[in-house]
C-alpha cells in the first residue's frame, strides 16, 4: 500500500515558487494518484457512487482555487480527503433540504445500492457503525495509515485504532463466514 504517496506530493518543495501560486500540475498529479481510491472508499462507506464522485470532485475543485495555500500544507492529500468527507456529509444534508433536495431524490433512488449486498464482507461493512465503516474503507480501500485516517476524520489515532480493531473483528467474521 502506498500510504505515503500523498505526503510525497505535499513535500515537493522543488516545485514551489515562494509567494506565487503553484502550477496546478502538482494538483493534477495528486488527482491522478488519489482520486480513484478516495471515491471508491467514500462510495463503499456511503453506498452512493455518484455522491462520492461529487464530493471528491468538489474537494479537488476547492483545492484548486486555494492551491497556493493548500499546497503548502504538510499533506495536501489529507486536506482534500477530509474536505471530501465533509462534503459528502453536507451533500447528504442538502439532499434533504429544499426543493433541490426533493428533485434529487429521483436520482438518489437510482443510485442506492441493491437491498441485498453483493457479498458477506460488504454486508458486514454496511452493518458497521459509521465511524468504524469510514475508518475501515479509508484504511483498507484508500490505503491510508492509521495516522492519515485520524487526520482525515479529525479524530485521534487511538480512536482510529479502536475503530479499526472492531471493524477488523467484524469483517473477519464475515470473511470467514462465522458472523
Amino acid at each position, binding site marked *: 500500500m502506498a500510504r505515503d504517496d500523498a505526503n510525497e506530493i505535499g513535500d515537493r518543495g522543488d516545485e514551489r515558487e515562494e509567494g506565487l501560486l503553484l502550477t496546478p500540475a502538482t494538483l*493534477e498529479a495528486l488527482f491522478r494518484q488519489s482520486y480513484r481510491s478516495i471515491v471508491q472508499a467514500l462510495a463503499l462507506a456511503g453506498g452512493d457512487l455518484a455522491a462520492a464522485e461529487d464530493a471528491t470532485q468538489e474537494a479537488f475543485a476547492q483545492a484548486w482555487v486555494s492551491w497556493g495555500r493548500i499546497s503548502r500544507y504538510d499533506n495536501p492529500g489529507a486536506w482534500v480527503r477530509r474536505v471530501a468527507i465533509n462534503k459528502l456529509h453536507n451533500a447528504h444534508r442538502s439532499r434533504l433540504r429544499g426543493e433541490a433536495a426533493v428533485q434529487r431524490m429521483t436520482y438518489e433512488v437510482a443510485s442506492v445500492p441493491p437491498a441485498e449486498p453483493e457479498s458477506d464482507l460488504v454486508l458486514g461493512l454496511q452493518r458497521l457503525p459509521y465511524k468504524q465503516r469510514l475508518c475501515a474503507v479509508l484504511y483498507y480501500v484508500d490505503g491510508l495509515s492509521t495516522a492519515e485516517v485520524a487526520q482525515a476524520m479529525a479524530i485521534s489515532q487511538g480512536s482510529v485504532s479502536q475503530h479499526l480493531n472492531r471493524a477488523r473483528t467484524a469483517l473477519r467474521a464475515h470473511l470467514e463466514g462465522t458472523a
Partner: protein
Amino acid sequence: MTIDERIAAELRRRSPQVDEHLAWDRIQSAAAKRRRGRAFRLVPISVAALGSALMGLILFSSFFSGPDLASDPGSSFLGTWVNSDTDGSIQTMTIGSQDDAVEITVHDVFSSVCSGAPSTMTGTGRLEGKRGLVIPAPVLTCDDGSQPVAMSGPPLEDPLRNLTFTHDPGTDTLTDNIGAIWVRVGGNGPNPEPTVSGMWPQSSLEEVREAQRLADAGDPGYTWQVDPELAAWAKEAGDAEIVTRFLRDELGWEEFQWSVGGHGGSSEETSAGLMWATESVFIRCAPGLTNPLYPDDPAGGNCAPTIDEYRYETVSLRIAQLGLQGPSGLWVVSRWVMLPPSDEPMTHGEESFSQRQIEQMTPPSDAEATALLEAFLQARIDGEGAQEFLSHPADGEIPLLFATTTGASYETSEIELLAGPVWPLGDMEFEVRLFAEGGETVVVQFIEVRRDDTGRLVLVYPSGSVPWQTATTENGMTVAMAELYEFLDGEVTFEVAQPWDGSFAGWEESPTMTTLHLDGTHEERLVVLADPRPIETGCVHGPAPGDAEALARSLMSDPDLEAAEAVAVHIAGIEALQMDVMAATRANLCEDVGVPEVVAGGTATGLEPGQRMRLYLIDYPGGSAQVLAIAIIAPEDRFESVIEAATPIVESFEFHTD
C-alpha cells in the same frame, strides 16, 4: 496473506469502477466557478457521459433554415459551412441545389462512428416552411469502406433521420437541433462572430498523416508537435507547445493565459481511442502591462485586457491527436473559436467563462465593501434589519444573527479582509467578529462580498473557501445550527442540529425513509419512515397497514418482538401512538439484514441484541402516506439519554398538508 490483506483485497475487489476521464474536466470547470463564488453544482458524471455519448452519436445531425429555397434557390443557404463536432474534428458541409431539390454533402475528417476514419454523408433535402430544411434520409458512409457503427444508443439511422437545419440571418449561421453551429466558410455575414476555424498547423487529415511520417523520421519541423507528457495526462493544455505556438504564431498573441488564471485543459481519451485535450478558453493579455483594476491579483494582476478596460480577446480551442494516438502521436489544434462579446454582465455561472468573451468587473473598493459590512454588522448589533443584506433568502439562516448562543446581544464588531478582490468578478472574503458581554464572547464568521447579476453588492454566507460546518464559531467553538429537513416533498419538516447528523449510508435513505445518527454512531439513530410495513413470517414485508393502530397491533402480535402496549401521545398536535419495542430473545434473524427488523427498513429499522426502539406511529394527515413512523433506536443503557437528545427533533415536526 494476513487478515488485513485479505480484507483489503476483497473490499477493493468489491469497490465500484471509477471513471477519471471526465472527472478532472469537471473539477476544472467547478474550480473556475468556485473561484468566483461558492454556488455551483457538479453535474453527475453519468449525466455528463450520457450527454457526451449522445452528442457523439448525432454528430452529423444538422439543421438549417433561411429564405425560401424554392423561391430563392440561390439564397444564403448555398455554399460551404464548417462545424467542429464533439470529437474535436472539423466537419465541412457543402449545400447545392439541383432543380428544385437541395443537396448536401458533409465531410468529417475524423468520424467516431467510422472508428476514426473520415466519413461522408450525402442527402437530398426539402424545405419546411421558410426557415427549415429537412434531410429525410441522409446516407453516411465511411471513406475507408468500413461500416459506420453507433457507439451507443439507437442505431445510427435513427438520429440521422429527418435532419433539420435552422438559419439565423443575423449571424448567417446554421444551428442544428442539438445546438451545434455551422459557420459559413468565407462568409461576410452581418455578424461574423463567432469565428470558427479549423485545424492548425495542418489543415487536413492527409497533411496530419504526412506530418506524422516526417516527425517519426525526426524532422524538427514536426517533432515539436509530439508531446508524450500531454498524451500521458502529465501536462495541461496550457503548457503544451501546440497551444503556445498557436496562440503566438497563428493568433499573434504575445501574452495570454487561461481564462481563469491557470493553465487549463487536461487530456482525455475518447471511447474511440482519440486523444484530445479538453476545450480550453484563453484570453489575450496586453504585453507588459499590469491589470489596472486588479493589480495585486495573483491570477489576473499581470493580464491587462486588450480590447478596452474590461474586455479580453478570448479564444476557445481544442487540441487533439487526429492521426496516431499515444506518446508518439502528433498534436494539432483541431478547432478554435473566437468567442463573441455579450450584452449581459458576467456572472458566476460556467457559461460566462466558456461561451463568451471574458470581461472583468470593476472590483468593489475597500470603502464600499467595508461600508456594506459595517451596515450589516450594525444591524445585527441593533437587533433588526440584518436579513436584508443577504443575497438569498436561504442565507437568512446565518447562525447567531442577532445574539450569542446565550442570547446576549452584540455590542461591537470588527472586520478583516482575508482575500480579494478576486479577478475578474471582484469577490472579497472577510472574517467578521462580533463581541458581546463586554468582549467575553466573540462570534466569528466568514462572509463574502460580491456583486450579483445586477451589479449590486451583496453578502454571501458562508464565504466559498470555508466549510459550512466551521463558518461560525463562538469563542473558538463551532456553533451548531439546526437545519430544516424536508420529507415527503416538504409535507413534513423537522429540525436537526448537531450532534445529530444525516445518515452517510445510501441504503438508509430513500424518498420515504430518512435516518439520522447521533454523534456519528450507527447504534443510536432516529428513523423517519412513511408507510412502514410489518415483517411477516419468513422475513417477508407485509402490506402497509391502513392506520397507526393496525400497525401497532401487528407489532404487538409479532412473536419476534417484545412490544409494550401503545399509549396515546401527540406529535405536532396530532394524535399518535407511542410504543417501545425490543427483539424477542429467540427472534428470527432476517438473513438479508442480519438482525430482526421491526418494520421494513433494513438495518436502519433492525434491532441488535440489547437495543430498544421507541416508535411513534402517526396517522398521516396528508395524502402522500397513511402512516408516518418515527423510530428512535439506542442500546438499552443509553436509551433514555438518546430519547432526551431526540426530543427537540420530535418536537420540531410540522405537517404542511392541506
